[in-house]
């Protein structure tokens, strides 16, 4: 086992002597360029793709750096690989279980008990999904796994069209919930902030607008301000 200082010297020596140095520099350069594009572009889909691309290039640079190491039993590599394995496992398996914890925590009930059209509407947008409601006066909706949660406070203030706008927004999240953990995982692997949340919300809004139109979406938004 080496000290951290020894490991840093080892990294510098191995990278300098390695044939992979141009590749590492290429990945870092690509990552910087993609991140600059991410900062410049305004289109949500371009922002998400460039952000994911920048992160992937950083992961490529990290992998290339690790493969240049000639020393055995590098502590930092072992720690990083353990961190990546554990966080990947959590990111993959948690969404499939977390909705069950949320149902229990909020004491949520199937929405079919009080609203007859919601499950059918959401299933036309995201297969095998379900809608639950929970006891709170605060207007709130969120999605987890294959489930959308809506508070009674939201059911209170929204009419049917506005509620459809909210459900369509959340259904977009359900349709893409296999991709968002990848974005989160890339951020974890590169130790950077998870940024695309705003873009994802914008894309979900656009999808809701396609389904129910602009008016209900905007009036729903106004009621939440």
């Amino acid at each position: 086992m080496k000290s951290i200082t020894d490991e840093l010297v080892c990294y510098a020596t191995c990278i300098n002597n390695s044939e992979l140095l141009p590749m590492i520099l290429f990945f870092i350069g690509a990552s910087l360029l993609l991140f600059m594009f991410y900062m410049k572009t305004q289109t949500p889909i371009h922002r998400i793709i460039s952000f994911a691309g920048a992160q992937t290039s950083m992961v490529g640079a990290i992998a290339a750096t690790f493969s240049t190491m000639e020393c055995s039993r590098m502590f930092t590599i072992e720690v990083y690989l353990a961190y990546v394995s554990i966080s990947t496992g959590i990111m993959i398996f948690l969404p499939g279980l977390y909705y069950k914890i949320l149902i229990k925590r909020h004491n949520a009930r199937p929405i079919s008990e009080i609203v007859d059209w919601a499950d059918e509407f959401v299933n036309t947008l995201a297969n095998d999904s379900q809608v639950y409601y929970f006891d709170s006066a605060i207007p709130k909706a969120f999605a987890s796994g294959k489930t959308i949660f809506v508070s009674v406070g939201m059911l209170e203030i929204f009419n049917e069209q506005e509620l459809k706008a909210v459900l369509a927004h959340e259904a977009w999240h359900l349709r893409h919930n296999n991709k968002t953990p990848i974005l989160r995982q890339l951020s974890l692997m590169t130790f950077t902030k998870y940024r695309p949340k705003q873009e994802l919300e914008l894309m979900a809004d656009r999808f809701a607008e396609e389904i129910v139109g602009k008016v209900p979406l905007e009036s729903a938004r106004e009621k939440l301000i």
Partner: protein
Amino acid sequence: MVKVDRINISNEGLTKFFSPIEAQIMEVLWENDEMMTSEITKKTNIPLSSVAGTLDRLVKADFAKRKVDKNGQRIRYIYSATTTANNAANAITTRILDSLVDTFGAVAIENFSNYKKNK
């Protein structure tokens, strides 16, 4: 938070025991049998964004109760106070007296007695 356990004796009226919004809502609930959220916001003139969280806290603290009511396609909460204003005053007073006796024992009891005589 509903703060019967954190009394502020320098405040006026019910705000000794409740936050100003909680006090306004409780007064409305004590004056009326059953109220919808929209009626509470109208009577108190407090926006929904402030009322909603406070109602959740009052229900959790058992000062208010609510049921989900379905009127046609519309869902709404119907609120009511869990107890009358007098019963709530009684419960709050008992808790305060218990606390004073716990802390000051005979001195507190003697003071209650003097207070009653002076009244």
